[in-house]
């Protein structure tokens, strides 16, 4: 199970203690991680921002955690994740779960090829202690250990 997260978060996909000036920059950072790790083109990042503008802050799925994503499309090269921790939390406009300090970017090639990955992600994010350790992590080794 846990190996899935390490695979999905390929090299270049993790950004720790980043500074974001608002939700748009926070989503952009998640997009940069997806592009850098070869998951999608930069158009997909724009699609994630557009999705947020259209559908609103529902993507803040739990206290402090946003799941940035757009629809499966030709802009997605392979299914995977990116992860951004923010040095200062950012408001996304969600009434119950703001402010956000962890942004997960998700790119999926189709609607059901990533279900096992989502199960692993869910297991990680359900664990409050692990999420706190993730938020405090300053290097990739610390983060990778949390996935195993």
């Amino acid at each position: 199970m846990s190996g899935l997260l390490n695979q999905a978060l390929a090299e270049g996909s993790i950004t720790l203690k980043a500074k974001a000036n608002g939700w748009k920059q926070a989503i952009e950072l998640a997009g940069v991680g997806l592009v850098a790790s070869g998951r999608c083109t930069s158009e997909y990042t724009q699609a994630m921002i557009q999705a947020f503008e259209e559908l609103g802050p529902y993507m803040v799925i739990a206290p402090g955690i946003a799941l940035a994503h757009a629809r499966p499309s030709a802009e997605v090269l392979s299914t995977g994740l990116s992860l951004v921790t923010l040095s200062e939390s950012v408001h996304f406009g969600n009434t119950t779960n703001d402010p956000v300090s962890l942004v997960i970017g998700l790119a999926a090639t189709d609607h059901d090829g990533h279900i096992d990955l989502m199960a692993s992600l869910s297991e990680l994010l359900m664990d409050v202690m692990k999420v706190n350790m993730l938020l405090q992590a300053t290097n990739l080794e610390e983060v990778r250990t949390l996935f195993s």
Partner: protein
Amino acid sequence: MKIIAVCGMGIGTSVLLKMNAEKVLDMLGISAEVQAADISKAKLDGPTADIILTTPELVYQLESMPGRIVAIEHVFDLVEIREKLSAALS
């Protein structure tokens, strides 16, 4: 019992909601079919669903559907999901 988990894209939040709802239904000993869908698919396939599981921000887009809407604020909170699903089912 048919439950449809709905989010904007049908790949993120709805999938998480579906998985965690299945865990809760299992705990409650209730057998139900849970489907993940985006808003437009939900409107097409959803009219037969007994319960529509979504997040508070999307409720207004789904109010025209006949099923009962259950809005979950924290998709990893199995306690919240259990409380709200049990209330909707009783």
